[in-house]
């Protein structure tokens, strides 16, 4: 449906983007300065790409080879910019009515009424933007963006200015809207939990390039590079080398010892990065013998710990050289009496170890 394949230079910054999206919510996730907003602006037609094509459904937006360019006002896109950008000289109703379509005035009027009801704005429809709260503004901005009935919706940090409760409500509204109308939604965020909670495909953007594009659990558990792992909150990436192929999988030299991994298809001798999510690491009392074989038991000492409410973040020195982060649920931390014991064993399940091969 949405097809973006372009390269554009903005001074020193190069945006080299390739995106495909069906009728779904595609999340553009990345740190600030990655080029997320610029990507939306390119699709909306606020910048001209240097090369490549942008199209949506059967409508061509831009094709540099054919020297074709569709003006932004002819693209029929719903575009929600950061902080809303409501027209300050118009009431809530007039803001929403600005782009609303309909054959007759009555059609347009009823469309605006419908949106006011849908977004629960009927009570404040005559107010000016200046007198609205952050959440109200964001709802008006969203209502205004979908008033012209676009089939492509571009949302730039739609929840950034909102408190958690309003955020959840608005997120559900967007999901509902997407399903009801069959919209293609491209949503920009720098917040990982927000990206995951929307439940669709995530494209990880960094320094103007898409690093990985996949379902959220795939991105989370099987990052394609150290950078993706780090952007998704996983600092546990270690160099290693595949030593042997077995029936169960592979054996890898990493973290100062031999690890057993279920991943397959990597030739012995290949240099890899070993990747384990902090919440997948098990903490085991040192004196207890592991009954299961091949559970990759490693000795470690707690260096640092940070309480983060529902979880405790521990930093362990394992095999005297490597720093491994372990996220422990608060109740487990209590039950295991972690605060009084410094020396531990950790166990890495072979299925939880992910090997990155092509990141050198």
């Amino acid at each position: 449906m949405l097809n973006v394949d372009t390269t554009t230079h903005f001074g020193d910054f190069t945006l080299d983007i390739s995106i495909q999206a069906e009728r779904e919510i595609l999340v553009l996730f990345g740190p600030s300065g990655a080029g997320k907003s610029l990507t939306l602006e390119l699709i909306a037609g606020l910048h001209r790409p240097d090369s490549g094509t942008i199209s949506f459904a059967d409508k061509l937006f831009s094709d540099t080879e054919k020297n074709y360019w569709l003006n932004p006002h002819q693209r029929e896109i719903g575009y929600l910019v950061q902080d809303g950008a409501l027209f300050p000289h118009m009431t809530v109703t007039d803001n929403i009515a600005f782009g609303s379509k309909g054959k007759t005035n009555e059609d347009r009027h009823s469309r605006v009424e419908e949106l006011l009801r849908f977004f629960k704005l009927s009570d404040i429809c005559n107010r000016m933007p200046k007198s609205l709260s952050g959440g109200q503004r964001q709802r008006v901005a969203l209502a205004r963006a979908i008033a012209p009935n676009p089939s492509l919706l571009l949302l730039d940090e739609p929840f950034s200015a909102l408190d958690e409760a309003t955020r959840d409500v608005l997120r559900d509204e967007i999901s509902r809207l997407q399903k009801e109308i069959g919209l293609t939604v491209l949503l920009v965020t720098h917040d990982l939990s927000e990206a995951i909670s929307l439940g669709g495909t995530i494209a990880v953007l960094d320094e103007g390039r898409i690093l990985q594009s996949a379902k959220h659990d795939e991105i989370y558990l099987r990052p394609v590079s150290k950078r993706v792992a780090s952007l998704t909150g996983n600092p546990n990436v270690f160099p290693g080398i595949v030593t042997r192929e077995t029936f169960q999988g592979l054996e890898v030299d990493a973290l100062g010892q031999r690890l057993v991994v279920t991943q397959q298809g990597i030739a012995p001798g290949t240099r890899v990065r070993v990747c384990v999510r902090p919440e997948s690491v098990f903490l085991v009392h040192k004196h207890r013998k592991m009954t299961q074989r091949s559970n990759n038991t490693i000795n470690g000492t707690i260096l640092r710990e940070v309480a983060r409410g529902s979880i405790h973040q521990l930093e362990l020195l394992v095999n005297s050289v490597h720093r491994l982060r372990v996220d422990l649920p608060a109740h487990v931390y209590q039950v295991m009496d972690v605060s009084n014991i410094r020396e531990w064993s950790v166990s890495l399940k072979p299925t939880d170890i992910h090997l990155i091969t092509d990141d050198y």
Partner: protein
Amino acid sequence: MKSGSLRIPAFLLVCFIVAPLIGLAVRGSQALRDPSLLTSPIVLEALRISALTCSSAMIVIIVTGTPLAYLLARRSIPMGPIINTIIDLPIVLPPVVAGLSLLLAFGRIGLIGRNLDMVGIQIGFTTFAVVLAQIFVAAPLYIRSARAGFESVDTRLEQVALTLGASPLRTFMRITLPLSAPSLTAGLALALARALGEFGATLMFAGNLPGITQTMPLGIMTLMESDLNSALAIAVILLAISCALLGCLRLFGLKRKPFHA
């Protein structure tokens, strides 16, 4: 420092500025006990020329100055900064020099005027010349203010309007123009005040021909020797207009705020 030592010079300056205005108001109102002064042919003619030329100049300034100010504000024309500086020059240029340079460009012997003269068009010493002189000195004031007004409009608002399907023209009329209207109005008031008072450039470039190029300021100068009361009548009219324009500036110009969503 005692506040007295500050207040005395300040008070003297205020007196100095207020005294002539009071003088004009008092003498003017005495003169206007004879209302027929306002309807004497020379006064009416000067009024007519001023109204005609100023309104023409303002229309030209709005029609050409608004697009220019917009392009300058959006930095979308080549050599913008240079144009910006050159355009401000007439504000600081002595009006007589402005008149002379207009004469050298559009007069019968001027660069452009010579060619126009060959096809039978003469500009110097016509009512049109008065309009040109007024545009030359007044346009920069409008452009400066309008540019600042356009710059204060968040470009994201325009971009959002475009994505909502509004054409560039509709975006300008519905978003940019209403949001910068106070600046445009203030700029227009300043330009009109400057055009109404235009004297030096008009005298040099258009002369002082009653009924053709004799505007109200030129009328005052002409009448000073023969008929002081008529001169006073014109001066009082100009004072009244100035007060109205100042009120306009107070309303739109001085309490200007940047617009943000």
